[in-house]
């Protein structure tokens, strides 16, 4: 299994990033490391939409994160606090290069307070873990799964994320074992 490099960009809390490592290590049974990488978020900001272009962030990391060239076997996950979009969709929670080596996930839309609810850090972390595992699943060539509880089930709303688990269903797990 490829080692996973976490790149906190634009200021996610170190506690949140640290809390991700355990579940990722357990799920993917691989080395999970946190690394620094500088990125100017304003370069990816779209004024018309007041959102950040996830595809461009993804490509920037792919082209400029030096470890990707030095260690071709790793996969890199950018973690951002911004509201992400791809041009045709109103928003995305994250984006991955299917079968590639990079992904980006935002927790902007995962926080309960965004929906007028009191802050709930365990819930935020649970959602964040699920989205991160989901995008990494795409990096390992998995596609969306029809099993509601599987982490690869497609989610467009946070309520959808809450319905699924942090783990892969049996089919996706064996697919992942085959592909990694």
């Amino acid at each position, binding site marked *: 299994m490829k080692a996973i490099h976490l790149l906190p960009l634009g200021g996610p809390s170190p506690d949140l990033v640290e809390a991700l490592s355990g579940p990722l290590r357990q799920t993917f049974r691989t080395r999970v490391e946190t690394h620094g990488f500088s990125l100017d978020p304003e370069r990816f900001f779209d004024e018309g939409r007041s959102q950040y272009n996830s*595809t461009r962030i993804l490509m920037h990391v792919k082209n400029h994160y030096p470890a990707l060239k030095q260690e071709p076997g790793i996969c890199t996950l950018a973690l951002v606090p911004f509201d992400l979009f791809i*041009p045709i*969709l*109103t928003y995305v929670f994250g984006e991955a290069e*299917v079968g590639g080596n990079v992904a980006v996930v935002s927790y902007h839309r995962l926080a309960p307070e965004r929906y007028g609810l009191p802050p709930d850090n365990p819930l935020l972390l649970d959602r964040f873990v699920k989205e991160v595992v989901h995008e990494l699943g795409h990096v390992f060539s998995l*596609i*969306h799964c029809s099993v509601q509880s599987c982490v690869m089930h*497609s989610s*467009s*709303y946070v309520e959808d994320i809450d319905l699924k688990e942090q783990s892969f269903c049996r089919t996706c797990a064996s697919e992942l074992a085959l592909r990694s």
Partner: protein
Amino acid sequence: MNKSEIGILVVDDELIVRESLSKWFREDGFRVDAAENAAAALRKLQAGPWNIMLVDIKMPGMDGIELLQRVRQTNKEVVIIVITAFATVDTAVKALKEGAFDYITKPIDPDYLDHMVDKALQQQLLVRENQKLKDTVSELSESGEIIGESPEMKKVMDLVHTVAPTDTTVMIRGESGTGKELVARAIHAGSPRKYFPIVTVNCGAMTESLLESELFGHERGAFTGAQYRRKGKVELADGGTLFLDEVGNIDTKTQMDLLRVIETKQFTRVGGTEIIRSDFRVVCATNKDLEGAVREGTFREDLYYRLNVFTIDLPPLRGRRGDIANLAHYFLEKFSRQMNKKVQGFSPEAMQALKAHDWPGNVRELENAVERAMVVAQGDLIERSHLPLHAVVTGQRDGKRLEDIEQRHIEQVLRDNAWNVSRSAAVLDIDRVTLYHKIEKFGLKREQ
């Protein structure tokens, strides 16, 4: 349906839209392609089956609405969702009027997009199911009546009624034109599988590789020209009946594959690895001497026993002359309705000629003779002169007909090549299947 079997075609002049939508649907497991303009979309539509088209309204050249109109002229099945940057009531109404399923505005809410695609696929499934049911109903209503009051035909009908409700494999034997397919349809119509399709495979009309692909389907790229995955007849017969016509003409390799699928009800498409299950009943027909073929080693003994569970022998028309009048009147009424002609019946001379004829082409020949007579008849009755029976009724053949010459020539070539069919076919410059047909048609037999 497996998502990888569902095709989505994205049509938009903006590269970023094509790329992001394609990626979005690929992550869902769909088969996706994109076209940058209407002309490219029409080409892609022609080249393969697509379930859904997402079409941008505003494109240079032919716009989305015009593309929608063009597609609808030839393709009623594909679901079209139009994408527009600024939704106005006018454009939405126009798109819907032209046959779009729905429209969405850019940027698209991802949940709305998923929901709309699901809805579109459900709608398409319902339309297809509805069409399938209509086809089945019309097939059942048009499955044809088996006409015959003779003891021979009564026996056949008794056998059909006995075997139809069971799941037993049936072999129907009889000369060409005796109505084997009609009997197969009657068996299907009387079975619990009647609301599922009866799928006919004409095994005699295809080459080895074509038959294999026809039976089992193929994956994309399985062979040159296989641009898309195609379901085979075995898969299409799931729940229903697989009717193997001219089963005696199947080559030995396909015989083995067929035996396996009949035994296990599992198979893989040509060029594929996925195991597909299909629950079907087998009814087959032949006018060949299968026992002889088994003895000669051209037909597998195990397949023969697997197929020959319950046999129905159809008598030739000359063996049930008592049915000729009924059949002739049945066809007369049928063609009167079809041609909107008011022909009341047959003159006594015409009926006598019909009864005296040998009918080597059996009921099919009789049907054709009545149809031809209906075309030329002017009055209330079909006269003797309207019937195309001269040559055979008199039994005189001067041997100068093209068919007679062809028969003699084929016989000669077969004799010259010691009845080696491959060699003879090569000399005649025809394929082996055609030569087998000719041997059967002319009733040629090797001299002992």
